[in-house]
């Protein structure tokens, strides 16, 4: 098979996956809509505040946001507007949902993508290091780290990091996504933002570093016993080339799978980490919207997050094909 045909097949596969994702996304919307509608709690109560409002006022607010209609009516209307690219209007923020979410999605993606890159890099390096000398002190350390990382909840780790690095040592800011007292421009602004990212990214990535470390180690140990590794060694290749070019490439498949899988969990983790660090992203918006029962915002965030996860999984599958010549579409 020529490279050209392979790329074409991959393109067709990607397109097919995207088309298949449409009913999936619709399903996500319907399920989320119904789940939110079934949950107890009235958005109008949250909107009005804590005082006795006359019934006519309550009814007017209810009608204003279309909440006087039945659930199926509202669902059909919502699907209709989503198809037109309109994610609705936030009850609480009195803003179009799309504006509200896109404004913050970039900040959340910055946090998430940095986390994925860091967790993958550190996890693979530690995993390889541990696999090269199984049962050594390095291996024991990496395994211990993996176990700890897997057991520590993000929000707790976040608070401990703040205590140590912001309160005790004073090295890093305790929260926010940039300095508020001083305004920076150019490179200084980039550095300022990077400093604000260090602790939330660490808190968010620790668990995924651990998972990746464990997986890399296990996968590589298995691969390194395979016949073709023996053959590569027999051909006189250096151990470094055997490991990085032959071993890791084959061991990478489960690692790539887990990156896509982790991504959806990082979405959930970011809501906690954003709250602990006051990072103004969609996770925080989601948290606030749950309490105000701001359904359009919740649905909008869940929709965009679902699309992101579907896209990341698609990219993962494509990376799979590129990493493993045996995979054909």
């Amino acid at each position, binding site marked *: 098979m020529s490279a050209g045909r392979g790329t074409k097949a991959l393109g067709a596969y990607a397109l097919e996956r995207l088309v298949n994702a449409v009913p999936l996304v619709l399903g996500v919307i319907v399920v989320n809509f119904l789940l939110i509608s079934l949950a*107890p*709690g*009235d*958005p109008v*109560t*949250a909107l*009005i*505040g*804590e*005082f*006795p*409002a*006359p*019934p006519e*006022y*309550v009814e*007017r607010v209810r009608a*204003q946001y279309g909440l006087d209609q039945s659930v199926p009516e509202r669902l059909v209307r919502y699907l209709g507007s989503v198809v037109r690219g309109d994610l609705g209007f*936030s009850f*609480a*923020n*009195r*803003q179009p949902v799309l504006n*509200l979410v896109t*404004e*913050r999605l970039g900040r959340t993606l910055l946090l998430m993508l940095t986390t994925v890159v860091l967790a993958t890099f550190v996890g693979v390096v530690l995993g390889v290091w541990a696999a090269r000398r199984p049962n050594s002190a390095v291996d024991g350390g990496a395994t211990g780290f993996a176990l700890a990382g897997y057991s520590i909840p993000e929000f707790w780790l976040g*608070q401990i990091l*703040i*205590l140590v690095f*912001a*309160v005790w040592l*004073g090295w890093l*800011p*305790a*929260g*926010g*996504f940039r300095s*508020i*007292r001083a305004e920076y421009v150019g490179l200084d602004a980039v550095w300022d933002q990077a400093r604000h990212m260090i602790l939330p990214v660490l808190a968010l990535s620790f668990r995924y570093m651990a998972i990746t470390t464990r997986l890399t180690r296990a996968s590589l140990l298995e691969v390194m016993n395979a016949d073709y590794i023996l053959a590569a060694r027999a051909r006189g290749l250096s151990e470094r080339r055997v490991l990085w070019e032959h071993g890791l490439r084959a061991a990478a498949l489960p690692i790539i799978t887990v990156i896509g899988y982790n991504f959806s969990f990082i979405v959930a983790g970011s809501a906690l980490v954003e*709250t*602990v*660090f*006051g990072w*103004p*992203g969609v996770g*925080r*918006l989601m*948290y*606030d919207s749950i*309490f*105000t*029962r701001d359904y359009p915002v919740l649905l909008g965030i869940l929709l965009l997050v679902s699309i992101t996860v579907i896209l990341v999984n698609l990219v993962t599958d494509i990376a799979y094909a590129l990493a493993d010549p045996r995979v054909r579409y």
Partner: protein
Amino acid sequence: MRTPLVLLALTLAWSFGHALAQAETPTPGGTAIVVLGSDPEHLNAAISTGYPIGAVGASLYSALVYLDRDGVPRGELAESWTVSDDDLVYTFTLRSATFHDGTPVTSADVVFTMIDVLAPNHGRFLNAYRNIASITAPDDATVVIELTQPYAPLINLLTVFEAPILPKHVFEGTDPLTNPANDAPIGSGPFRFVEWVRGERVTLERFDDYFLDNALLDRLIYRVVPQDAARSVALEVGEADVVWGFYMPPADLDRLDANPNIEVWKGLTIPSLYFVFVNTDNPALADARVRQALMFAIDREQIVEQAQGGLGEVAGGPFGAGFAYAYDEATDYRTIYPFDPERARELLAEAGVGDLTLTFVYDSARGAFAAAAEIMRDNLRQVGITLNVQPVERSVMVERVYGRDYDLSMQSFTSSGDPAIGYHRIYLSAERGANFVNATGYANAEVDELLNAAAGLADRDARAAAYADVMAILAQDVPTLPIFDELSTQAAAANLRGLLVRFDQRDGLEFAWLAR
């Protein structure tokens, strides 16, 4: 003793701001960062009763009046006002003031804001509006409010939290709910709007044409810090300068107090009463003896010390410690209902109640409620009552409690400077299902009559007599179990001077300045 406590607290409030300020000369300049617990949804305080919007709005907007440290109404936009002999016509004379865009504030702005923006959209103002027959502007500097019946709390409902004044020329002919000025507000307060980064901060700067004494700070930044522990940390590491009372985790106060760079203040400004609603739909709880038994059985002192970290005082009456005229020492609840499990058991036996199981519903976000629930569960077990504790999310709590699907529920209420605004509704008989009114099912025609009379009396002594009668009836009926009055707290950077918290929640940041 109630009054001395209030005086002590108010004195503390005063001294926090002024003892420091007296020693040095206030100097203008600098930036102060004030913590908000959540992002404001928009910045139009006339269409919302949300706290973050009101907090920022208090610096951006002005109103006809404000309440001073003693809770006495003073003129803000109104230079003075007169009340007719029949208590029905209030005539306000306005000062010369300008909005942040340079246009003058006139009586037309006041009338437009009240009728077209506040009345349809601001629930608390609506309560006043229902007693208002007309609001008119005979000339540019005069506003006349005519009532349908005497309504004593009116003045308290004309402060910046209840009735901020918007520019008519910006809002006229538009939908006030979606006007772009909701995100880039124009007010006439001591600070003007500069920038809002949603989820992060709202930046204001001093308005140099403010109609009263100009503020001292150059800039005021309201910063959103959603997690309560992170708010104390922001103060400790210098990323924030002020954290207001209820955003403060009580557990952090001792640590902050020990920090020489931080000034911690405790006092009673905005009266807030914590109590337990009792659902009289439950046949056992419909018997007043059972409700009295609950009062004897619950160790309110323990709740103040352990659930509230000592930041409170056991409640003496149904209207809280904030209103001296709505309290009668003769029927102090602490004297009538000491902690006495033995007496509780006797009353339960008299009522023929044994093996009672009660559902206790509360808002799960309120840490003090959770701790109090555990103490009450333990207290009530001593008298043979099983408490089934159910923490639920706030919006679910509202549905359960006002739909009367509960037995006991812990709540806290404030009353915006007048008992008639916040507390009357708890005891007035009401329809089932209406939110934030009487949720206990208690109905007493005499109480209704006395409370309605009290709301119409401008004379404090006459009101006091009506409240003394109500208090005596409620002390026997106990449809709610008053637990404690909350003490407010506030922590601020020690170099931020001149801060004072006013009675009407207006933060008084226009008086603050930075010592260098």
